[in-house]
């Protein structure tokens, strides 16, 4: 089993939707009865390509309507592309190969597959029947997953009585009961509180490390992506504008950090200029900007000097602002 061969390969993927515009107003509605509105084409995915290796945990990032969910839908076989090549574990997703369906899974944050009025266990038993999981495997998986997610008490709880976080835990359990090798997560933490988000993230990280399951995650929350993925694919307006390690992204687009020094008394600017590049100078506050590698040295120099330093603050432009800037001004 060569680890180099990508488990997911996408080439020249294209998808567009036809959209009919409906205008408001009584008159326009009347018009619509006799002259149905024209359809305009909207390109959701234009020429996307990437390769993912087994065990990778990749994040898809992008604004609403960028094409993340559409791409995942094509990878899971729900949607047919207009053109392009997709291979997951050697299968073409939309050919509905039962073998493929038994080996992958998808969790959609806003859509639930659990039965509302019944205890979660019933929905799990349904998936057991659908995926033909043996009794031993099923019991072992339930034990393992409920422990990892701290969800033992949820098995007999009715889904409609669960909080959003509890529901998402059960949603995930239901989706991976059959031990999929590939997992797609579409906005899994949407609407969850901070604690629930952390629980889900911790679980996903552990799960990926232990089982080497290949995971693609889309999310609005940078926190999800930053904490879980080393590699990130940024999609905007249907095109990939960055595909690579997060660390490299940060290095490339935010190479500098800032140190803010609060002084007890005024110090001559000239004296401070020796330490590093000053981008802001006030009576009692100086802001230095230096490349990341040099930040430690600068901090050490400042602190060991005889400057009347009251407080020191090291900051870096948040990854959020980096990415925001990428979307605003492009690369």
């Amino acid at each position, binding site marked *: 089993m060569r680890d180099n061969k990508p488990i997911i390969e996408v080439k020249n993927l294209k*998808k567009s939707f036809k959209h009919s515009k409906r205008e408001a107003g009584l008159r326009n509605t009347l018009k619509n009865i006799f002259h149905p509105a024209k359809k305009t084409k909207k390109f959701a995915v234009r020429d996307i390509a990437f390769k993912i290796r087994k065990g990778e945990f990749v994040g898809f990032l992008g604004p609403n309507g960028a094409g993340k969910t*559409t791409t995942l839908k094509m990878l899971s076989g729900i*949607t*047919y592309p207009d053109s392009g090549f997709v291979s997951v574990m050697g299968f073409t997703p*939309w050919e509905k190969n039962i073998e493929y369906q038994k080996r992958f899974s998808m969790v959609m944050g806003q*859509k639930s597959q659990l039965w509302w009025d019944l205890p979660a266990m019933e929905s799990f038993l349904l998936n057991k029947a659908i995926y033909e999981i043996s009794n031993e495997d099923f019991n072992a998986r339930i034990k393992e997953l409920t422990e990892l997610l701290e969800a033992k008490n949820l098995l007999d709880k009715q889904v409609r009585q669960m909080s959003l976080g509890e529901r998402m835990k059960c949603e995930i359990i239901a989706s991976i009961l059959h031990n999929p090798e590939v997992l797609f997560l579409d906005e899994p933490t949407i609407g969850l509180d901070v604690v629930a988000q952390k629980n889900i993230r911790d679980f996903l990280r552990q799960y990926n490390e232990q089982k080497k399951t290949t995971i693609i995650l889309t999310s609005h929350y940078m926190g999800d992506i930053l904490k879980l993925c080393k590699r990130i694919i940024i999609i905007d307006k249907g095109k990939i504008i960055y595909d690579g390690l997060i660390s490299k992204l940060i290095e490339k687009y935010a190479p500098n950090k800032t140190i803010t020094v609060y002084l007890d008394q005024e110090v001559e600017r000239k004296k401070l200029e020796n330490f590093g590049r000053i981008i802001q100078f006030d009576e009692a506050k100086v802001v230095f900007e230096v490349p990341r590698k040099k930040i430690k040295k600068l901090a050490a120099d400042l602190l060991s000097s005889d400057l009347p330093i009251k407080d020191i603050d090291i900051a870096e432009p948040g990854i959020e602002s980096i990415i925001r800037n990428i979307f605003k001004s492009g690369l």
Partner: protein
Amino acid sequence: MKASAFRKFWHYFKVFFVIKKLGFTGRASYRLNFLLLIFAVSFQMILSVIFVRTVFSFVKEIAGWSYFESLLVLASYMIVEGAVWMLFGQMGAIKDLIRRGGLDSLLIKPVDAQLLVSAWRGDLEDVSRVFSGLAVLIYAISNLNLPLEFILFNSVFYFLFILNAVAIAYSFALFLQTMSFWLIKGHSLTMIQDSILSVSKFPTDIFFNKIVRFVFTFAVPIAFISTVPAKIFSEGFNFIFLLESFAVAGLFFWLSRKFWLFALRKYQSVGG
């Protein structure tokens, strides 16, 4: 090859059964509502009987059918409708799944989506329809003064006719509900379904116009849903009818599946 086909069939049967169990348990969990629904459905059945009774309190026969013979038709309608409501929820799950996006979750499962959507909804309270139908059937038969061997012998064939009738009603429901892929709101489809099928409460012989009768026998074959099964007790076993019953059931099942697959393909190439 045979073994794997059997295994697949068994797998599908199990999945269907599990989904039905889920559906029934969920529905019965609202106890008061469930009891009221049973009452409501039973009452609807009683209403139909009242209607037939009232009409026959003034006349002796309608289009050659006596009161008890007409009850045979009504009973067959109740049994078939009850079965399709109970087992398949008249395919009402389709429009809900499309509208709320749940269909996507089903498409990624390693089971034919048609099976899943067929099982997804099941109104348990409609078992009372089946029971009412059986009660009316027994009542009607007992009043027709038929010899016992005749009843027993023909009951077997009656059962076959009913199976075909359920297949036809199922295919009809599937065909109509598949249109939910193109229409925004789905309520109207159920309405059409119900109204067309309710025509089968009466013997198709009431349609003295030949063209209309042909339409309701072969184009929209409601005749095979209730009138033809009933005729086995009112007129006796007819082999041609049995063959036609199988042929029509098979044809409509095939057509409705083709339409469903077509709609599904369209849905998937258009996307969300």
